[in-house]
């Protein structure tokens, strides 16, 4: 039993303790702290009294890192993993988008939230490692990373960077290089929680509601991968809880397509 609403309160407020950096980031954290306090007040009445387990002080105090969940992407193209999952991504530091519960992620809400413009050229930008964008006055950086697992644990990406982990929106971009034109293939996506995915600018897969990440959860209609470069872009939104996604291309029989390579804008 995980009481996600209250956990968001605790997580959000604890995130606020790791303030650093710019004034804008400070402001952002304080907003998050305020939301956390309000959320705690709103949720406390629902929760029975219970004893606390002592937080492992060493674990809590350990320097944060995105390892072992991510490694820096190299300049060499990267093939999908043995099951066809795409592990190389350009990830943008999380945009704060507070939501106390994931049950608000209806199709209407998600389409509106993820089609809103947060930064210039949001649907066409091919960012390079370290490039920054400004969202609501806050500077966020892109990171060129390889996920070490089949799924891309964006919660761990945010946690490792001392960024907010709950009530957030992640943007991800990768370039899929195909040795030939591939017709009648499909994009297979799982995400926690809701997400939308665009291939070469076309909305091809939408995952709404309070979703757990399941491989091959939502499958796109039949698509064509161009010979050469294809741009795959995704946005994942989550309230409380872990955030991650897994993406691969499959053929008409559901078998993974593995003769691809992933690269990132230089």
């Amino acid at each position, binding site marked *: 039993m*995980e*009481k996600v609403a209250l956990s968001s309160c605790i997580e959000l407020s604890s995130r606020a303790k790791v303030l650093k950096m710019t004034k804008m980031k400070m402001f952002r954290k304080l907003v998050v702290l305020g939301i956390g306090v309000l959320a705690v007040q709103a949720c406390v009445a629902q*929760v029975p009294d*219970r004893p606390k*387990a002592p*937080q492992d002080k060493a674990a809590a105090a350990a320097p944060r890192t995105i390892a072992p969940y991510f490694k820096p992407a190299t300049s060499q193209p990267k093939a999908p993993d043995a099951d066809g999952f795409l592990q190389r991504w350009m990830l943008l530091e999380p945009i704060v988008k507070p939501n106390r519960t994931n049950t608000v992620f209806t199709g209407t809400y998600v389409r509106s939230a993820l089609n809103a413009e947060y930064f210039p050229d949001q649907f066409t930008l091919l960012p390079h490692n370290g490039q920054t964008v400004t969202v609501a006055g806050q500077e966020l950086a892109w990171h060129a990373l390889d996920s070490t697992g089949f799924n891309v644990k964006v919660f761990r990406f945010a946690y490792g960077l001392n960024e907010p982990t709950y009530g957030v929106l992640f943007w991800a971009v990768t370039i899929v290089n195909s040795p030939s034109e591939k017709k009648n293939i499909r994009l297979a996506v799982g995400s926690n929680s809701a997400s939308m995915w665009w291939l070469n600018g076309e909305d091809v897969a939408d995952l709404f509601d309070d979703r757990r990440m399941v491989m091959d959860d939502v499958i796109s209609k039949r698509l064509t991968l161009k010979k050469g470069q294809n741009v795959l872009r995704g946005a994942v939104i989550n309230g409380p809880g872990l955030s991650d996604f897994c993406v691969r291309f499959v053929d008409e029989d559901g078998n993974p397509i593995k003769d691809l390579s992933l690269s990132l804008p230089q």
Partner: protein
Amino acid sequence: MKFDPLAAAILILLPLCVCSRAFAQLDGEPYIHDPSTVIQSDGKYYTFGTGGGGLISDDGYTWHSGAVRPGGGVAPDVIKIGDRYYVAYAVGGGGMSGGHASNVKVMWNKTLDPKSPNFEFHDVGVVASSDGVEDCDAIDPAFLYANGHLWLSYGTYFGYIRIVELDPRTGNRMAGNKAVNVAIDMEATDLLYRDGWYYLLGTHGTCCDGANSTYNIRVGRSRNPTGPYVDNMGIPLLKGGGKLVAAASGRHMGLGHFGLMDLGDGVQKFSMHYEADLDRGGRSVLDIRPLLWKDDWPVGGDDFEPGTYEIQSERSGGALELAVDFVRMDTGRRGWGPPTGPVTPVANQTLAQDSAKWPAGNIAVDLSDYMVRPHQLWTVAPVPNVGGYPGAPYFKIVIAGTDRALAATAEGEVETVPAFTGAPEQLWRIDELIDGAYRIMPKAMPNSAAPVALIAVGASTPTLTKFDPKSDKGKWNFRKP
């Protein structure tokens, strides 16, 4: 608009019909969240929930508060090994209080009856934990004792579901044992073992949000207790897989915290909670429902639905009926060619037409070809205030439209009596078997304490005798008329 009295009556009665399903919910005050597997101790049934305390029942149908469990915490589980009841529970975690730092603790007792002189909990200590940062939140423990090994699964949506091995003699962690990751995006797990397969069950969806909770029970299986567990599509539970076992239905939302009750003789049930029982103000309540198996996968069954049925023998296909004279339906003479005049429907035989010459006293029953005749139609209805058995109340079984009731005799036979009196031999226990057929047992047979069931001893002859789960003789189907 023309007034249709039949339609009006249906519209008026429809809400009553919907609400009548409420009967199948457990009786009493079964309010609980995150119930442990229902277990028997000293003749009573027990389950414990989050926050301490729990429920007690004398018969598995009527539940009251009163179970005692110290330690507080969340989502306990219970298992009996030898003369000990081991209780596991989590302190912290769950995204509350301590965030995701949590300890799974174990204690044991020789009885769960708080009034027993032997009632004394003994603390074993912490058997698993999460540090609040790692990809695991050590809550929702669940036991499995199989092949001499004691396993414990735990975890929630915050990272991995893990399995550790405990020492069945002490309840403590086996020396040197390391936790194994077996699933993601799951919580409220449980473990089963059956025919060489280990099953990992747990919930997907959201808990703790009343009627908006999407909790539903999923399963994967493995030949090894530590996995890898995969679902029916071959998707690993470590990649989010899980075959559906049970989800919302009727007036109940958000099923979670599966616990197996193996009642023997081919009857299995599962305990769980509904996040919201709309007939009880949307509160979280305990329920116990049949567990079926299909192609070596567990399937959540439904509560028995009261109604009017043909009761068909699995053995012969014969319909249970009053042993009375067959009354022909007069539909006139017809040729085999196309009709030469208007074609009009023929009404079913009425109860009055069929029953005109029925004896007034007791009437025997037999099995015969089903012809949709009134003497073959049985109305099955729950009987209030007479208790029940795990998950359901006792039922009366009467000829539809009458009070003529099926009853056990002192000679170990079955017959009908002119009027239902509520006597124990007229009360029936109906259990769905793991293959979907039903076992039908009288609450009591006069002059006998041995449990008996309705058995097709011959192709056309029912009697009452010991139930054999390996034989079709004691299996019945309730078919819509």
